[in-house]
């Protein structure tokens, strides 16, 4: 296996730290109904040129984590704690003006729905130019040239003409390309893509993912891709973090997650992917139950109320204790589950894999 592994990566920058490192990130929101614990202790690392996929259902804390990296919850009611190290700098404790200099410049974000993520009243080109000028002391003509260049690079035909179009005049795929171009305006080292292809149809989806991989090679950027689509992860990422109820439940190299998953939730995710090479009578398996309320998280394993394999655990630990995220093997594969590792492998091989 050639991919670097989340927890053991040491290539790092001059400071000896990985390029991006999250340590025990917590994001909580106080509301009328109680404290919403959106993210509870998220840790991972990522090097330049690599891609990390964060997978989970809506409300599992994926997007909230990405906003925390950008510092976009500063000044709101959100309570963010833990550490986020980017290229030797710690972001959680950073002041707003400092982190503002990083936004767009060092870290850029590609948002889910480009129609609502781009300002409806300004021309696409001007929005790109703005992203450049805020970090570069350059004449507008330079910014415009770069914008047109990048629009061209992301595959928008006659970019100097489309420069003057408004977002609503673009198709969905074109808007997503423009959004990517906007994120690339300042050559960011880290790209966070929050469901970048969810709003697009499948062919366009594939084009956008190819584009992102090409650009990654070209700019040597690190990419965090947030998605609920395991297909996207399989195509893009080297490492995967599976989140559930604001916690990491399984993480590791993409092969481990797809071929040797050990957490029942991950099994459920894999089981719910439709496959073409299956007979027509094959039914997709869904995970029973609903995602947990982030206000009243279960006392034990967050997945326990929906887990079908509790009988393999002695006693009541599934209900009583949160399992720890433990490393298995040497490849950086980590799992949060009370079932014994060997038992999990057996269950996967006997009960899950044949049905996938």
């Amino acid at each position: 296996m050639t991919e670097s592994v989340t927890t053991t990566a040491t290539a790092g920058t001059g400071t000896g730290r990985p390029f991006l490192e999250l340590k025990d990130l917590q994001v909580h929101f106080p509301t009328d109904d109680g404290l919403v614990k959106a993210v509870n202790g998220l840790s991972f690392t990522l090097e330049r040129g690599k891609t990390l996929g964060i997978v989970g259902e809506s409300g599992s804390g994926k997007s909230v984590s990405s906003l925390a990296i950008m510092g976009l919850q500063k000044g709101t009611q959100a309570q963010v704690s833990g550490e986020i190290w980017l290229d030797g700098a710690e972001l959680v404790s950073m002041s707003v003006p400092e982190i503002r200099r990083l936004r767009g410049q060092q870290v850029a974000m590609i948002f889910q729905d480009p129609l609502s993520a781009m300002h409806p009243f300004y021309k696409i080109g001007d929005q790109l130019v703005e992203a450049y000028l805020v970090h570069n002391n350059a004449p507008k003509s330079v910014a415009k040239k770069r914008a047109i260049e990048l629009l061209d690079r992301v595959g928008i035909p006659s970019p100097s003409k489309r420069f003057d179009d408004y977002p609503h005049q673009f198709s969905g795929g074109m808007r997503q390309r423009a959004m990517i171009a906007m994120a690339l305006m300042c050559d960011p080292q880290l790209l966070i893509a929050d469901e970048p292809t969810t709003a697009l149809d499948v062919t366009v989806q594939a084009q956008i993912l190819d584009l992102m991989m090409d650009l990654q090679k070209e700019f040597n950027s690190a990419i965090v891709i947030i998605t609920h689509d395991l297909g996207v992860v399989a195509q893009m990422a080297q490492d995967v973090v599976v989140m559930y109820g604001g916690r990491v439940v399984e993480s590791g190299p993409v092969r481990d997650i797809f071929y040797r998953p050990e957490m029942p939730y991950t099994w459920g995710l894999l089981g719910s992917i439709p496959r073409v090479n299956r007979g027509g009578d094959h039914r997709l398996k869904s995970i029973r139950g609903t995602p947990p309320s982030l206000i009243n998280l279960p006392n034990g394993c967050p997945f326990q109320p929906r887990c079908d394999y509790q009988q393999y655990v002695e006693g009541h630990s599934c209900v009583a204790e949160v399992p720890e995220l433990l490393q298995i093997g040497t490849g950086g594969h980590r799992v949060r589950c009370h079932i014994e590792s060997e038992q999990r492998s057996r269950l996967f091989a006997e009960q899950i894999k044949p049905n996938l």
Partner: protein
Amino acid sequence: MTLGVSEAQSPEGGLPADHLADTAEAKQIEGRSLGQIAWARLKKDKIAVASAIVILIIIGVAIFAPLIVKINGFPPDQFNKVDANGDPLLNTRDGGIPIGGLWGSGMSSEHWLGVEPQNGRDVFSRLVYGTRVSLLVALGGTIIAIVLGTVIGMVSGYFRGTVDTLLSRLMDIILSFPYLLFVMALTPVIADRGQDLFGIPDNNTLRMGVLMFVLGFFGWAYLARIVRGQVLSLREREFVEAARSLGAGPAYVIFRQILPNLIPTLLVYTTLLIPSYITAEAALSFLGVGIKEPTASWGRMIDDASDWIESNPLYLFFPGTALFITVLAFNLLGDSVRDALDPRAGRS
């Protein structure tokens, strides 16, 4: 087995679990309906409770006006010239200004809020009876506007096509009328025709009816537009489609499926309309085109009192304050209702 890109995923279809949102354990935490949440929020909201109490008191005053006036013993239309001791109440040489009391108001233990200049009618009694006019006209107008607006908006949105085009044009026309001017011009015209049209002579009972009708008639169009828009989107929703595909008729769909979803909108609009109609009735009576003498109405009292603003400012102060407090109470309650019904409020 391959691990290719999955081929057929709807935008949110990746996780089937998202669709199973109905289990019991989820209900415990998130299963409260909007109505229950709104009610819980309202009960916690001190301003809402306080303004609701004030409104209940005002309604009580309106209902029990005759009883309340019995306590002080001065019917609202009675001209009082002398007090219990036989001393004159009004200074006849000075244009009929009340004698004594704070700022020439004639306030005394008999006449709690003083007496009217010239006529000597008891201000408190007139204020109490004025509550009736205000609330009746406002409620009547609101009911007419809400019923017309809801029915026309639903019909327009549900049936679409020619019906919708015609009704929408009608809304446009009504909305481009100079509203206040028209109400002002129309009220006396209709009231004048009372004998011919309804067999009722031009009296204040008729005028109250006319005011309700005119206010309601010009007030429905805006609501109808909102309702139409909501119905247009509601009728495309799955639960309506499902009902229709099962053979439900338009009446069933409109009243059982769509109407319940409009209730928050209607509630909010009602709380907006009532205070604005209270103000409108006062304004029209003030201008001399609404309620006329001898019936007591706050707007008429303010108009009357404006002539005495230098010599007896309190005569203006009392009806002004009554009007202000009433409108404020309704607005405060309306605001709280709106906030309570707002699904986004208090989250995030």
